[in-house]
């Protein structure tokens, strides 16, 4: 243990603790900006500076370890003055038109500037704008970038993609797409983790809310919206709702108030996915000699993009089942259009997703099978949905809960856990067990695959067949797993991969809380919903059963293949 004094207060911490953490332990706040715990402790913004007695230089608290007997001042006149100058320097190169910024009110730079009492800046403004492909689902605004390098770090250290890098040197040092590429030429998976870890508004999703408002205003259109599982665990966070208030039924009410004609649940198509993907897996298992294992889940478009660009030779191992979003679109514009007795192109089908990659997924040409343009016309993130609610001046706290529409608003507990890492695997195993054993397992029989670890593995017995499964979340973990697989160090039959750490709960389209990782808390909300659900097996979802009876015939039927499966080699 090391004893030291911070602002006159005696503190005792473990050796090699940083000054920042020592102060935190003592209840003393040191402002930080570029700092991202264990990922970006680079002392770049020079906001967390502190004065150490006997040292003429101010030191960054985030990456300076404590020493025995240190006397640290976190707010001495020298610190105060220097910190303020540094902040003003940052502001001089930041587009401070906060009123038109998507992160206004949720911006670390804005907060620190307010906290430090900045009322005017003494330096002339020097804003550097750079061109960006505005059609790409991920938008970077150089004029707002403060070069904290968090995006570079998260993309490299958590996602192993290295899409971002430091570009140029000297005064023109900035962040840009690595290897001198354009973003459209890069292998960006659109996981969106760079956005959720950006302290300011330099990174955001392409805003598609106007398209949705236009559709809502179009009297000719029947607007259908699906809500992804993970959205319900997060949507209320940026609207000031408590977790108890922010139920999915209140979100349904808000969307209905906004004018959507039919409000459905992606849980329905998650259950459908389980029927198709589970059956596909069992089919593969029955031809064990000729099939290549493991089979990979295909519901995460970030992961699918990853595999296509990083290991194209393994794309054939992806389940051919479409993601729940796309299954929903295909079913809506065929089966449901028929139920409504309308032409499918009358329907505007939209999704609310915790995800950016979904925007790209629904725009893929070869994903559409309903012969009515896009199966899913547009996908918006949880954040965009929240912004729409605000734009409509809806106060969701005052709304009474409302039910989803039927039949596509019915989902099982197995469907809802799709939003957490391990959920797809667990849901699939629940139904696979049933399909093989002709009886249900205990719904919690496969709970071993839950939890936030990046790489989980388990073995289960399925009617005498030993199943080796793995669940990974975060693309670096996916890469580790694939590398280990290719070196024959591990062998699996079925692998679930989610691009975002913790799965969709921690998705790149979810509300942003700087410095907090909420995938775990949101995931536990989803597991709670599963537990309290009346239906806990995808194969028991009555709407799914009916859909097969009336329309699709059976899992893997000809029609199911046409509508619910895709060829990953195209597009």
């Amino acid at each position, binding site marked *: 243990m090391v004893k030291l004094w911070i602002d006159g207060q005696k503190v005792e911490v473990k050796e090699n603790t940083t000054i920042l953490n020592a102060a935190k332990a003592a209840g003393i706040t040191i402002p930080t900006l570029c700092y991202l715990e264990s990922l970006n402790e680079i002392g770049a913004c020079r906001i967390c500076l502190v004065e150490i007695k006997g040292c003429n230089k101010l*030191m960054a608290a985030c990456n300076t370890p404590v020493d025995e007997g240190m006397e640290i001042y976190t707010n001495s006149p020298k610190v105060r003055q220097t910190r303020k100058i540094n902040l003003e320097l940052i502001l001089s190169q930041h587009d401070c038109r906060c009123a038109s910024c998507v992160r206004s009110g949720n911006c670390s730079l804005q907060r620190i500037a307010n906290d430090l009492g900045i009322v005017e800046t003494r330096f002339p403004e020097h804003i550097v704008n750079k061109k960006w492909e505005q059609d790409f689902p991920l938008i970077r605004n150089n004029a707002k970038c403060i070069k904290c390098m968090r995006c570079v770090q998260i993309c490299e250290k958590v996602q192993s993609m290295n899409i971002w890098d430091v570009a140029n040197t000297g005064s023109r040092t900035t962040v840009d797409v690595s290897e001198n590429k354009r973003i459209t030429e890069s292998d960006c998976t659109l996981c969106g983790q760079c956005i959720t870890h950006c302290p300011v508004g330099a990174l955001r999703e392409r805003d598609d809310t106007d398209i949705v408002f236009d559709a809502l205003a179009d009297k000719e259109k029947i607007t259908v919206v699906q809500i992804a599982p993970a959205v319900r665990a997060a949507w209320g966070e940026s609207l000031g709702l408590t977790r108890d208030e922010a139920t999915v039924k209140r979100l349904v009410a808000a969307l209905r108030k906004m004018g959507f004609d039919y409000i459905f649940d992606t849980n329905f198509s998650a259950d459908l996915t389980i029927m198709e993907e589970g059956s596909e897996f069992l089919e593969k298992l029955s031809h064990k000699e000729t099939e290549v294992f493991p089979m990979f889940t295909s519901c995460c478009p970030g992961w699918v993009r990853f595999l296509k660009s990083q290991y194209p030779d393994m794309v054939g191992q992806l389940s051919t089942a479409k993601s729940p979003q796309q299954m929903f679109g295909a079913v809506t514009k065929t089966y449901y259009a028929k139920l409504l007795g309308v032409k499918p192109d009358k329907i505007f089908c939209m999704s609310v997703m915790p995800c950016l990659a979904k925007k790209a997924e629904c725009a893929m040409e070869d994903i559409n099978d309903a012969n009515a343009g896009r199966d899913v016309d547009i996908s918006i993130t949880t954040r965009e949905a929240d912004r729409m609610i605000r734009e409509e001046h809806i106060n969701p706290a005052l709304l009474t809960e409302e039910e989803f529409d039927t039949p596509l608003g019915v989902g099982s507990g197995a469907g809802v856990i799709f939003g957490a890492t391990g959920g797809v695997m667990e849901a699939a195993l629940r139904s696979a067990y049933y399909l093989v054993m002709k009886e249900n397992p205990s719904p919690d029989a496969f709970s071993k695959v839950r939890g936030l670890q990046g790489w989980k593995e388990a073995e289960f017995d399925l009617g005498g067949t030993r199943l080796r499964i793995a669940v990974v979340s975060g693309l670096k973990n996916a890469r580790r797993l694939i590398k280990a697989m290719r070196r024959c160090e591990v062998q699996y039959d079925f692998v679930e991969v989610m691009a975002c750490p913790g799965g969709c709960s921690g998705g790149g389209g979810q509300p942003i809380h700087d410095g907090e990782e909420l995938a775990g808390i949101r995931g536990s909300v989803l597991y709670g919903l599963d537990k309290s659900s009346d239906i806990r097996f995808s194969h028991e979802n009555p709407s799914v059963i009916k859909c097969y009876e009336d329309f699709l015939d059976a899992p893997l039927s000809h029609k199911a293949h046409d509508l619910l499966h895709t060829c990953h080699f195209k597009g």
Partner: protein
Amino acid sequence: MSRLRIITQNQAQKTVENLYEQLEQRITASPPGLCPVDMAASFLKISHAQSCGKCVPCRIGLGQLQCMMEDILDGRGTEDTLDLLEKTASAIFYSADCAIGYEAARMVLEGMAGFRDDYESHIQKGRCICELNQPVPCVSQCPAGVDVPGYIALVGAKRYEDAVRLIRKDNPMPAVCGLICEHPCENRCRRNMMDSSVNIRGLKRFAVEHAGEVPVPKPAEATGRKIAVIGGGPGGVSAAYYLALMGHSVTIFEQRKQLGGMLRYGIPSYRLPREVLDEELKVLLSVGIEVKYSSKIGQDIKINELEDEYDAVYIAIGAQTDRKVEMEGENAPNVVSAVELLRRIGDETYPDFTGKRIAVIGGGNVAMDVARSSIRFGASEVAVLYRRRRVDMTAQKEEVDGAEAEGCEIMDLMAPVKIALDEDGLANGVWVKPQITGRIKEGRPIPCPSMQQEMMIPCDLVIVAIGQGIESKDFEAHGIPVKRGGAIEALDMSGVKNLPSFFAGGDCVTGPATVIRAIAAGKVAAANIDEFLGYHHIIRTEVEVPQARIANRPTCGRITMKERINTQRVKDFKLIEIGMTQEEAQQESSRCLRCDHFGFGVLKGGRSKKW
């Protein structure tokens, strides 16, 4: 009234002079990878400030060049800007009245030719193609990428064994390098911005000498794969060491009686004592490497036999043969090659030059080595004949100074033209033509014959030290590509085109270079041979580097290495250089600015823990 007065600098001028010096130091410490256009624009700004302002091209033109360069840097430039930049710079070059103007313009033109693609990238993509890949200057300058701040911190913490372990991860020969490395790591040391570079080599030597015996790590599980390494010099031994650590079965084929290559047969023991070399080799071999001595590949063993018997072959034969001066009298029996002489010394056959006058032809390190060795063999006079200026010598400055201090006569701007023979056909002198230094070509001025008369330097023995050749004929016959001049053509991953199991590196690929380059080539080859064989063994060390702490770094002079006094050291072949004291090593290690932590290092990872 006084007519004249003594000119003294005012305070402002003194300060500026001081700043000039600091700027020079700062430029010395420029990290590699900076945007060259940005740097060129910055130089131009300084050049412009130097203008007296009298003439149009310099006063106005240099400013316009800057504007255009800024436009290009800020993404406002087009091909037209580039075109106008070139035309304007040319106009300034042709028309400026003095060097302040035309030399500034010439620098711009040189840059436009030298990093045109970077200009293009700024115009087309709005960004620089350069990248600061390795942010720690010393590590980036070390061919083997040794973790310099890491081991300096370990020396500071008095953890010498760990320092040696950490160095060996990237360079298996710290003892050798602690004495004779050319220390490119020191060139761009950021400490230059404050005072002067850290004495890195000296600290390495200190670590090795205080670590005691540091055993090698346990090799990985045996793979059963066999690798032949041809040549037991630093490159071959390094490759063999890493390959053996990876679990492969390695055999070194050494044509001479002992290992070491140029370390033994090129470098005299007053720079690298044999005991140090032998001890280092012994430790490295202890990892489990077989050595076949006196086996010359191509003669004693055919290359296709190796190819059949081994899974991979690493050619590290070095540059071992002498080169002829191609002049009259060269074949006299008392005209010997430096390579030949040093080889004999390597096997501890010492000639007696007592009372003899020696003429050494050449200006490289080898020339200095034979000159200084000759003094130790009792020569009465040693003259080093070199056609360029002393400052143009390729030998390290310390070597030239050392030779001179020991009594060698450095005769520069003297081009040998023929060797004078007596009636018995023995050389009795070297005719030289005095030279005048001329235009600069590739950074060095070309010597040209002056109008002075040729003269004869009388001598009893001529030693020719004008470079080394590569004996690659047998390899060429086997289908290994060889460049003109005999160098083996290898790819940057050290493989050989069309022969997947053959790898080559070191002097035999690059021509005579440095020990650290040979070691680096061996490391690269080991990694890629391992991959070629289908493995991915990781070389790492568990040594934890002490965390960088607060950055209170007062200025402090560099500890320089002391040497034994001249009159004593010329009498023997014992090590000249004296190692640092404990006190010196502690102070010197504390001078390290820890660029692995402070600055870009903390972002881009100043440390690679494994390879």
